[in-house]
């Protein structure tokens, strides 16, 4: 059963990745192009202000992958690969959570898990370390930025899991409202501590358009929202058919 759920999760993830690609191509790519134009303008100004000592032009870095490829097949590959992987991992988490979260059926479990995953994997990490367009971020700090990003991601997921386990434990004795609100309060405190404890990163160059940054980050959130909505709702429908095709779902002949 788990293998069959995994296959369904990955297929829904591929579909989610394709839909996210359409959104990303329409709304994200124009912002990436604007950021790259700023980057090129900035390096041109730098060269004009301080030409290299030996008078030679700075060698342009050879373009390994053209912009057209990056914005189409590259972007599609990235989003579909990410979607399939996230959909697959989601289905494995679902396989464990199903039947272990009270009386929730397959669709409700899937929708609830996807909403929780969106908050833990996207919203909380992005509030602390938001997505940045090209031209923002220094090459020298990539190692530190990558470490901090993944540390925050792991802590954010751990805190969400802890909150769900707490709610589940309190549910039977105290009822839904008390359990839910206690777990929510505990979650917010833990998220507050984690995001406050990690160091801030701000490498925004002077003169970078705030509008481009805003539009870029909103389209990044939109991409993730599409991914998680399609996975949560689409996988729920497929999983329900696989897990709960009991007598009540068949047409009544008698």
């Amino acid at each position, binding site marked *: 059963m788990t293998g069959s759920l995994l296959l369904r999760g990955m297929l829904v993830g591929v579909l989610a990745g394709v839909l996210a690609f359409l959104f990303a191509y329409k709304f994200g790519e124009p912002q990436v192009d604007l950021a790259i134009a700023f980057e090129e303008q900035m390096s041109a100004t730098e060269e004009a202000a301080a030409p290299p000592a030996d008078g030679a032009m700075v060698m342009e870095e050879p373009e390994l992958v053209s912009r057209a490829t990056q914005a189409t097949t590259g972007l599609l590959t*990235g989003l579909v690969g990410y979607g399939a992987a996230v959909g697959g991992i989601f289905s494995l988490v679902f396989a464990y959570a199903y039947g272990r979260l009270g009386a929730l059926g397959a669709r409700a479990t899937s929708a609830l898990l996807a909403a929780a995953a969106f908050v833990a994997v996207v919203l909380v990490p992005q509030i602390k370390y938001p997505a940045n367009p090209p031209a923002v971020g220094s090459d020298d700090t990539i190692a530190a930025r990558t470490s901090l990003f993944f540390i925050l991601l792991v802590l954010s997921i751990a805190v969400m899991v802890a909150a769900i386990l707490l709610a589940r434990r309190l549910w039977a004795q105290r009822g839904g409202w008390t359990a839910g609100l206690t777990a929510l309060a505990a979650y917010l405190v833990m998220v507050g501590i984690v995001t406050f404890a990690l160091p801030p990163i701000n490498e925004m160059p002077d003169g970078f358009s705030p509008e481009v940054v805003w539009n870029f980050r909103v389209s990044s959130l939109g991409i*993730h929202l599409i991914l998680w909505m399609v996975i949560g709702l689409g996988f729920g429908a497929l999983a329900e058919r696989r897990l709960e095709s009991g007598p009540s779902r068949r047409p009544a002949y008698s």
Partner: protein
Amino acid sequence: MSDMTFAPARPAPLPLAEILPWAVFGGLLLLIAIYFVGAEEGATSVFQGSMIHEFVHDGRHLLGFPCH
């Protein structure tokens, strides 16, 4: 009609022993896929060069992974 119920009974959980091998091997492979989309040839490299980085460049930025 009186024997039809719409409130589902509490669904039976899948046994852990059935989930575990899928979770370990499937989960590992999928995490490697996320690594290649999100981080390869950034802070750490399995392969030399920056071909993979450049190919998934836009997706990496738009998904919010740290990128150069």
